[in-house]
C-alpha cells in the first residue's frame, strides 16, 4: 500500500513554508520526489536543513538527468538524508536546455562541491555561486559533455591534418 506523499511531515512543512516553491510532489516505491522552482531552491534547501523536526543535514547524492529532446531538458536531482528522522527525500529542479544554470548548493551543503563539478563536467550545467567550478574528471580541453544524450556512446569525430 503506497503511502500518500502529502501526509509526510517534510512535505507538509515545506508547503507551509513556501507553497509557491513546490511545483509538484510524487511518490514511487515509497520514495518521495519534490520538484522545486529553480528560483527558490536555495531558500527551500536551507529550510529543509535547519527546520526543527526535519534536519536534512546530509546531502547523499547530487546528480543530473538529460531529457533530450524533451524540454525543459535537464533536471538536477538532490538526494538528502536526515539522521534525526531517518528519512530520505528527493528534490528535483527543472533546468532549460538553452541556458542550463542553477544556484550552487555548496553554501547549504559543502559536500555538493565535487558533485557540482562532476555535473558541470559531464552535463555542462553551470552552478551560480560555485567558487571552483572546473572539469573534475575529464581533461580541461575536452570537447562536449559526455553524459548529454546527444553525445555519442562510442566513437568521436576524427580530424585529419
Amino acid at each position, binding site marked *: 500500500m503506497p503511502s500518500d506523499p502529502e501526509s509526510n511531515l517534510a512535505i507538509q512543512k515545506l508547503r507551509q513554508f513556501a507553497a509557491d516553491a513546490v511545483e509538484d510532489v510524487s511518490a514511487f516505491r515509497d520514495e518521495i520526489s519534490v520538484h522545486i522552482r529553480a528560483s527558490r531552491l536555495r531558500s527551500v534547501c536551507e529550510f529543509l536543513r535547519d527546520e526543527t523536526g526535519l534536519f536534512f543535514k546530509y546531502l547523499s547524492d547530487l*546528480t543530473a538527468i538529460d531529457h533530450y529532446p524533451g524540454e525543459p531538458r535537464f533536471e538536477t536531482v538532490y538526494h538528502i538524508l536526515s539522521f534525526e528522522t531517518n528519512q530520505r527525500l528527493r528534490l528535483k529542479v527543472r533546468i532549460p536546455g538553452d541556458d542550463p544554470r542553477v544556484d550552487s548548493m555548496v553554501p547549504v551543503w559543502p559536500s555538493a562541491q565535487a558533485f557540482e563539478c562532476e555535473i558541470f563536467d559531464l552535463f555542462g550545467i553551470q552552478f551560480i555561486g560555485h567558487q571552483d567550478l572546473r572539469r573534475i574528471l575529464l581533461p580541461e580541453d575536452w570537447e562536449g559533455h559526455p553524459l548529454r544524450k546527444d553525445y555519442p556512446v562510442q566513437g568521436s569525430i576524427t580530424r585529419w591534418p
Partner: protein
Amino acid sequence: MAVTLEKVPGQEEKVILSMGPQHPSTHGVLRLVLELDGETVVRAIYDIGYLHTGFEKSFEDKTYSQGITLTDRMDYLAPLSNNLAYCLAVEKLLDLEIPPRAQWIRVLLTELTRIGSHLVWLGTHAIDIGAMSVFLYCFREREDLMHIFEMVSGQRMMTSFFRIGGLALEPPLGWLKAVEKVVKKFPARFDEYEGLLTRNPIWLGRTKGVGVISKDDAVAYGLSGPSLRGSGVNWDVRKNQPYSSYDKFNFNVPTRNEGDVYARYQVRVDEMRESLKIVKQAMEGLPEGPIKANAPHFVMPDRESMKTSIESLIYHFKIVTEGFHPPIGEVYHSIESPRGELGVYVVSDGSPKPWRCHVRAPSFANLQALPKMIEGRLIADVVACIGSIDVVLGEIDR
C-alpha cells in the same frame, strides 16, 4: 598539468609540490597538489579523473542485466557490494521479492567482501606508515576470502555473482566448509594485527590526533561509512535503513568520537570482527529454498527448466536478446559498502536500457574532506590521512 595552485603575489615564496598520480601511497592514481611552507601543508587540492571510464554513459547503452558487469569494475576491492547495490536498486524498480536463501547468501558474501576490503585497507595503510609485516599478513588472509569468491562465482575479483532477482548460481557443495574455516581462523588473525599496531608507540604517534575531523564537518563534507563513524556519528545504512534482511542479524555498529586517523583505524578493525559475527550467523541460519525470485519476465530461468519448458526458453530468449521492460520511474537505493554509503540511482523510461544510472560513490564524497584534514599539518601526515579515508580511485573516477 591542468590542476595547479597559483602562487599568491606578495607573499613569502612557498613550494608547490605535485604528489602523485604515481605515488605509492596515493592508493591508485590520485594526484594531490600541495602548497608547502617548509614541511607544513598550507593548501591542498586533489586532482582526479585518471581512471575515468565513463561507466555511467555505458550503463545507458546496456540492458539492466548487462549493467551488473560494469559495477564490479568500479570499486574493485569490493565488487560484491557494488553488485548488491545495483541489483537492489533495479529490484526496487521492478518491485521484486527476493527469496530468503538468496538474501542470506548475499549478506554472507558482502560481509566477507567487507572483511577483504578492510584487509587491503589495513595492509596498505600500515605499509604507508612503515609497518611492513602487517601488509604481508593481511594479503595472506585475503587470499582465503578470494578462494571463497572463486569457489562461488568462478572469479576472484570481478564476480558479477548477484543477479537481478537473486544469485547467478547455487554455490557449490562444500563452500560453507571454506567459510567456516575462515570464521574459525580470522579472530586470532585480527588479534595478531592488533598486537602489532593498536598499542605500538610508533603507530600511535603517527595516527593519534592526526587528520582530525569534527562531527559537524564530517556531516557537512558528506563523509560516510567508517570515516563518518570515526567522528562520532552513529549511522550505518545496514542498521538504520536495513536492506536484504540485515534487520534479522545481530551486530553492533562500532563508533569512535575522536575523529582522527586512529579512531578510523579502530572503527574498521572493530567492523571486521562484527562482520565475522554476521557471517557466522548467516552461515548457521542459512535457509533452504530457491535462489531466484519467481518473476519469469525479469529473472533468467535456470538451465534445467529451459530444457523442459518452452515458456522458460522464450523468456530466456527475450531477456537475453532484448532485455526486460521495467515500469517507468526512478529509484535510489543505498547500501553500506566497506567505504560508506554506496547509492545507485536508476531512472527508467520503460525501455530495456536505463535512461540514466548514477552511482553515488562513497570515496568520491569522502575525498572532499581530505584537504580539510591535511591543511596545517606536516607532509608526512598526508600519507596517513589518505590511508585513513580508504579511497578507491576506480570508484571515484567511474
